[in-house]
């Protein structure tokens, strides 16, 4: 069995997401699809499965043209796509989750569902997978790794020839990843072709046979995993040496303490974390997803309640009850989800920028100063927009992120918390954001940078904290630059 994709191109508006990409998937083999954010990995697999329509190109399944209208027809014809976002509904049972799209296959003459038959089939599939999942279990009692296994079980009920996994491990913790990967490896024996999108090299090198490497929507290389190494793959997918994309670091060690955390804990996710941040430094926070970085930022910003511990801001006890408690103390946050948490997309650029810092005179809005403020910020942050009154929905991801950035700057923060500021934005905007962060820190503004991008932490931060399961496993001090391998060691 062979699935080939030839010369595939796909554009979303002005963005060329895929540009003449060709590759193939063979039965019994796991092929990793590797690239940076926005490289076109997911888009390639989605185009093959009919989730997106390709602009040009051709897909063949065993020599027969394969052109499903959507992912459901694709699944019925043997090519199943497992989405990154969970499709498990925790309010219904395990068998119902597996057969959710084919409940009608289990109805009797009266149109009622035969639960016994459905449960028996679910038991059979789960036993084959060996995920150790009780078919009667409450979904809330299963972990996210087991949810992914259920989605895989659902995929298998289609008797597929090809399965695509889109960052299936993104929301899993380390233990769940191990269990999930062993289930995926087991699929090879069933002669299924597997496409596996992942950001994590250790996973790729653990289970994949081959890899296709992509960059900016283009095919870069195909590699046999046994014949390559992470450095080579990294260089291929980045296409340039690291270092030159990051601004120069400061040479003097910042000394004046601005905020200190003592034994801060957040229920279940952060345990007795203590560290101090100095005025004007860029402090990096790294770790796997769910290792506690979001909780540190959330607790400082008053968005997540600390269960115990203390914070000291500029020498005074600090305990924000809500985000407005933090903004009142000149702390700003650039949230992780820009279109849900960062800005209101159908409001204008101006209204978003001034939202947290409305200038008033005698209790009334000072519209003149407000316009001046938004124009100054649009210039400073280099937001590409025709008019400040354009809605944010008309902007690209990078420009939207700059609006959120500008909104925070309008509040004139002393401490600026950044949650993955460059996630999912193009390289140009990314460089501009790095420059802004660096300039702010040189002006004495303190930055706490939470990032999943290790190179970003290495390139940007004066000091870096690494978290593992809600505890600090390592602090890289000023003048002690971390390496990627070393950081990963402290994360796992």
């Amino acid at each position, binding site marked *: 069995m062979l699935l080939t994709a030839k010369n595939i191109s796909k554009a979303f508006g002005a963005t060329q997401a895929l540009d003449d990409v060709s590759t193939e998937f063979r039965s019994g083999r796991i092929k990793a699809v590797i690239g940076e954010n926005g490289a076109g990995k997911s888009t390639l697999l989605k185009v093959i499965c009919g989730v997106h329509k390709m602009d040009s190109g051709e897909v063949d399944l065993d020599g027969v043209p394969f052109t499903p209208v959507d992912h459901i027809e694709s699944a019925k014809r043997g090519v199943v796509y497992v989405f990154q976002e969970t499709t498990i509904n925790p309010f219904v049972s395990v068998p119902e989750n597996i057969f959710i799209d084919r409940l009608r296959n289990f109805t009797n003459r009266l149109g009622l569902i035969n639960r016994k038959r459905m449960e028996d089939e679910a038991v059979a599939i789960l036993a084959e997978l060996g995920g150790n999942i009780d078919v009667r279990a409450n979904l809330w009692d299963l972990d996210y790794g087991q949810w992914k296994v259920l989605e895989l079980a659902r995929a298998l009920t289609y008797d597929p020839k090809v399965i695509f996994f889109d960052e299936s491990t993104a929301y899993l913790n380390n233990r769940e990843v191990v269990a999930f990967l062993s289930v995926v490896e087991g699929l090879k024996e069933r002669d299924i072709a597997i496409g596996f999108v992942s950001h994590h090299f250790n996973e790729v090198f653990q289970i994949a046979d081959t890899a296709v490497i992509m960059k900016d929507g283009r095919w870069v290389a195909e590699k046999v995993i046994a014949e390559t190494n992470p450095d080579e793959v990294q260089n291929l997918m980045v296409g340039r040496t690291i270092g030159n994309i990051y601004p120069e670091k400061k040479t003097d060690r910042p000394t004046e303490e601005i905020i200190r955390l003592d034994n801060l804990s957040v229920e279940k996710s952060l345990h007795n974390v203590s560290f101090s941040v100095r005025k004007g430094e860029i402090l990096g926070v790294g770790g796997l997803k769910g290792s506690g970085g979001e909780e540190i930022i959330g607790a400082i910003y008053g968005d997540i309640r600390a269960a115990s511990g203390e914070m000291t801001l500029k020498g005074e006890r600090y305990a924000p009850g809500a985000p407005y408690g933090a903004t009142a103390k000149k702390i700003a946050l650039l949230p992780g989800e820009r279109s849900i*948490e960062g800005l209101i997309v159908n409001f204008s650029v101006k209204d978003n920028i001034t939202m947290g810092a409305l200038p008033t005179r005698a209790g009334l809005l000072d519209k003149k100063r407000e316009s001046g403020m938004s124009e100054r910020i649009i210039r400073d942050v280099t937001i590409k927009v025709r008019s400040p009154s354009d809605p944010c929905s008309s902007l690209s991801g990078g420009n939207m992120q700059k609006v959120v950035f500008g909104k925070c700057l309008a509040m004139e923060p002393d401490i600026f918390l950044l949650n993955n500021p460059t996630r999912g934005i193009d390289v140009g905007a990314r460089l501009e954001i790095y420059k802004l962060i660096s300039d702010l820190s040189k002006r004495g503004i303190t930055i706490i940078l939470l990032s999943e991008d290790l190179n970003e932490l290495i390139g940007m931060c004066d000091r870096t904290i690494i978290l593992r399961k809600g505890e600090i496993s390592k602090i890289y001090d000023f003048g002690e630059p971390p390496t990627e391998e070393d950081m990963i060691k402290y994360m796992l």
Partner: protein
Amino acid sequence: MTHADAEATPGFKNFMTMDTFKKFFPAILLAALCIIFGSQRPLFFSVNNLMIILTQAVTVGTCALGLTFVILGGSIDLSIGSVVALSAVSCALVVPSQGLFAIAPAILTGMLCGAINGAVFSLGKVPSFIATMGGMVVFRGIVLIITKGRPIQIRDDFFLDVYASRSFGIPNSALITLIFVVFTLILLNRTPFGREVRAIGGGQRVAMLTGIKVTRIKLLMYVLAGGMYGVAGALQSARVMAATATMGEGLEMDVIAAVVVGGTPLTGGIGSIWGSILGTFLITILSNGMNMLGLSPYVQSIAKGIVLVAAVFLTIDRKKIGIIT
């Protein structure tokens, strides 16, 4: 049509895009209604009838001013009619002792009701649909207990003169409403409070992470709306010279219709006071005109429903319609 064609044919085609049509549709509809009614009944355009329309628009109008904030903030209020009735009752009860100033307890009663609704909603985190539905029933119950089902008459001539007669031919109640139009316009467009209400309706999580005191603003927005219903209660009691147990029943439907037809979608964030005023006149003129045509109340009811749904169908961007919280 290519870009060059678009530039070659300026004028109506470019002016009348779908967006501008949607934007002006309520005004177009209003004009169309006026032309229809005016052509059938010349008296429709008489000064006297226009003043009657103004008088009739006051109750829905003052309530719509308040409800605009609530809907802009992404919430809903079903208790309007009951709050208007309860305010009218407290007004009528104190007219004998306070005279002219009886409007103050009416406004305070409205604000108190708003505070209760707002507290259940924003502090208790009960969805506003449910919180105010409870308010609707409870406040009506209080009205029934106080009135025992009988009207409370207002006999103070000075009170009735000030709130229900005309100055220079214009109804006083409309002039008083005009003061509140200016007040709410300033509040919505010229104060941080107005912007914050919009921001909460546009995206509550974003507003909260921007440092806006979401809980407090949501509570205040109901207090403000309640105060406006209180004004409506006082003016309505002056108009009918009594507070009655059934006063304002079903009023919330007209008010919600006025705000939504005026271009404020139930999802919040976008909309304006002017739109709600336009919507108020649409609803009022529709009733007034149909009365002049002598249509039966049953037919009127059907026509009103169709106009409401059609207006929303034609103007609102359905992608943004979601769940009311």
